[in-house]
């Protein structure tokens, strides 16, 4: 049973096609009129240690590369990738919200740098080209 009764996909497939044809993307909202879509964005924030900060885990991993028989790895730094999806009225708003998150929560600017990739999500769930 679960929450299936809360929302079920529109029975009329023509409606969905219409939304696609108009270039509207994202999830339907329950608290708005049917067919009203809020754009959804996929963000990938890459957090890396600033070059001046020692990365002992990266060094230990680099030492293992030659033990695997791969020579010539001169530098290896370990960071992290944070993937998130966010609803926002437009790409600029989504970008500024994720930038705030990256600066204040996802990375610590004292020791880390970050880069942001942002794409709108199409109705079929795939990233639209930026």
């Amino acid at each position, binding site marked *: 049973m679960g929450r299936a009764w809360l929302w079920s996909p529109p029975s009329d497939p023509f409606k969905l096609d219409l939304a696609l044809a108009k270039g509207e993307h994202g999830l339907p909202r329950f608290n708005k009129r049917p067919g009203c879509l809020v754009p959804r964005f996929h963000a990938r924030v890459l957090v890396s240690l600033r070059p001046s900060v020692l990365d*002992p*885990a990266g060094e230990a991993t680099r030492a293992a590369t030659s033990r695997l028989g791969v020579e010539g790895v001169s530098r290896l730094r370990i960071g992290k990738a944070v993937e998130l999806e966010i609803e926002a009225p437009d790409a600029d708003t989504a970008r500024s919200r994720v930038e705030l998150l990256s600066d204040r929560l996802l990375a*610590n600017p*004292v*020791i880390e740098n970050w880069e942001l990739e942002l794409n709108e999500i199409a109705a079929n769930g795939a990233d639209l080209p930026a």
Partner: protein
Amino acid sequence: MTIGVVVFPGSNCDRDVGWAAEGCLGLPTRFLWHEDRDLNGLDAVVLPGGFSYGDYLRCGAIARFAPVLEEVAEFAARGGPVLGICNGFQMLTELGLLPGALTRNSRLHFICEPTALTVRPGSCRWLSGYGENEEINLPIAHGEGRYQCEPSTLEAMEKSGQVVLRYRNNPNGSVGDVAGLCNPGGNVLGLMPHPERACDPRTGGLDGQRLFASLLG
């Protein structure tokens, strides 16, 4: 005189601090849940060691947004004494109450051992019971205690006497052998060693006791 000890999900030194303060020195202690906002009646606040919220993302990064810490930051701004031990020190840097950050130990190991330190109390009110350049021993227990900051920040803090605790045999690769820092006002102290584990003669050493006793004036 009542000391507030903040308890986060994942704190594991909160009761040790309670024992050191109330059990060993008779200082009344009140435990504060991380969602509390009421610091009324408290004369000092301790952020204890542990792994707040699992220490996901970075140590102290999620705790920094705990409701109680907003109040603690205001308390500190009014000159209230705040002590951050280990994970608590990490929170103070994430909050920006102390500069820099604490990162993975240079040799990657979690280190749990007694450590020799030099104290330079300066104007730090938590360390008023220690002599200038006094050598003490306190246990450390951390995997991410390598203090890191810009060289210019370190230089400024050394000049202003904020580097109040130094390792004598740097165990984790901290810049400037930094083991503990105080804010310019002297009321906020963050340190990686555990003074609360050196307050009871039955568990080894009494070098941490004067830190809590400083609250008695």
